[in-house]
């Protein structure tokens, strides 16, 4: 490669301090990192992949921070970026035939749960993984992130009516899976045509 010893670097610029609004945004983004990592983890079932996804999300957010019009909607904005990146990654993984490491993750989740919840945790991890990604997203946003319908709609870029019908379908399918009924999922969209 020929990377050589570096001559004493020439200092081009003295760095200015960051301004207050940028600092406030920085603090706000950092505050969202645990939620982003958690959401990514439950979408991907892999800590390493989740870290990569969040990293991509932060990169994208930094690159287009000017597009954040309303800082009060930072969380939805970040989750929207993350979910879009996730869908892009999903399509790429589908082309490569990659699947979620369901059993490893189910065991990990069960191990972290209180003893009385371990079976439930394992069953839920398996069932959630078998849902379409759209249904998993909506159940996570609603139950884990405690989003309202409008926030879910904003995050996923959907009409609120679609959110409602998709949610109803997601709950029904999750329940069926938890009761041991395997469902056929086609192309990961899981009857999406009926949502509109």
């Amino acid at each position, binding site marked *: 490669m020929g990377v050589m010893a570096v001559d004493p670097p020439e200092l081009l610029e003295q*760095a200015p301090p960051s301004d207050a609004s940028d600092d406030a945004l920085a603090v706000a983004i950092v505050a969202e990192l645990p939620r982003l990592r958690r959401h990514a983890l439950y979408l991907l079932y892999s800590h390493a992949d989740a870290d990569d996804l969040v990293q991509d999300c932060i990169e994208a957010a930094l*690159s287009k921070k000017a597009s954040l019009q309303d800082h009060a909607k930072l969380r939805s904005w970040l989750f929207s970026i993350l979910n879009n990146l996730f869908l892009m990654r999903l399509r790429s993984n589908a082309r490569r035939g990659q699947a979620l490491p369901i059993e490893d993750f189910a065991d990990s989740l069960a191990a972290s749960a209180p003893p009385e919840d371990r079976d439930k945790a394992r069953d839920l991890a398996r069932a959630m993984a078998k849902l379409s990604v759209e249904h998993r997203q909506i159940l996570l946003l609603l139950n884990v992130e405690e989003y309202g319908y409008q926030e879910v709609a904003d995050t996923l870029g959907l009409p609120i009516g679609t959110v409602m019908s998709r949610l109803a379908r997601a709950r029904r399918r999750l329940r069926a899976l938890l009761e041991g009924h395997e469902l056929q999922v086609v192309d990961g969209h899981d009857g999406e045509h009926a949502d509109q």
Partner: protein
Amino acid sequence: MTVNTPISEDELHAYLDGELPDARRPAVEAYLREHPEDARRLGVYRDDGAAIKRIFSHGVAATHPRRPSGPRSWRSGPTVSRRHAVAAALILAVGAVAGWFGRERINDTDMERLAHQAAAAHLILNGPGVEPLATSSLGELSRRMSSALGVRTELRDPSGTGYKIVGARIVPLAKGRAVQLVMRGLADETITFYFEGRPGAKETPIRRIAGNGLTTLVWEDDDLACAITGALEPKKLEEVGRRIYEALLG
């Protein structure tokens, strides 16, 4: 409102989620009194939601797997813990980069992107588990790094500088891959190097991007674009970074 008012499935779920308009609540409640099977079904959905919240909300921190002490893959390379030390750096990293770019002090968009990505890669280092690369030799690291960057690299042990490599990570990019190396100093301070292959690149001066306590330096060297980020005073990072870089790749 009568008991016979048509109630949609969506309305039942909206009722469950507290999203139903007040005007419709009496109708839905009346419907559920007359249709106990639907009331039970909503109860089951509510319990499923509560289980998701209980298990998925609280399991995440504890379920981050500790890396095994034996051999592990490069792809799953370590994250750096130092939660508290890095937490401060995270805030500053974003602020520093955002503040700098907000003033358009770097006009080279490719170097701006590099700095964004280096800062983002630094941001992600908030996972638990400081674990040395017990089984990854420098030779193996060099091989992996060369493969990822498309540029032959030969790493040398930088520990004489007081900094050790404690983590490594391949960062997928829209085009190609980057490599992040995590260094730990004697005082437990963490700095990160971030490399991209840049065939044909020649040495450029170092540009400094800094905010309140955290600095990123970016530059190009032969066939490489480089960034270093750390919560050190700018002059200190510049001095340390150059020393480590010379030891590592000189």
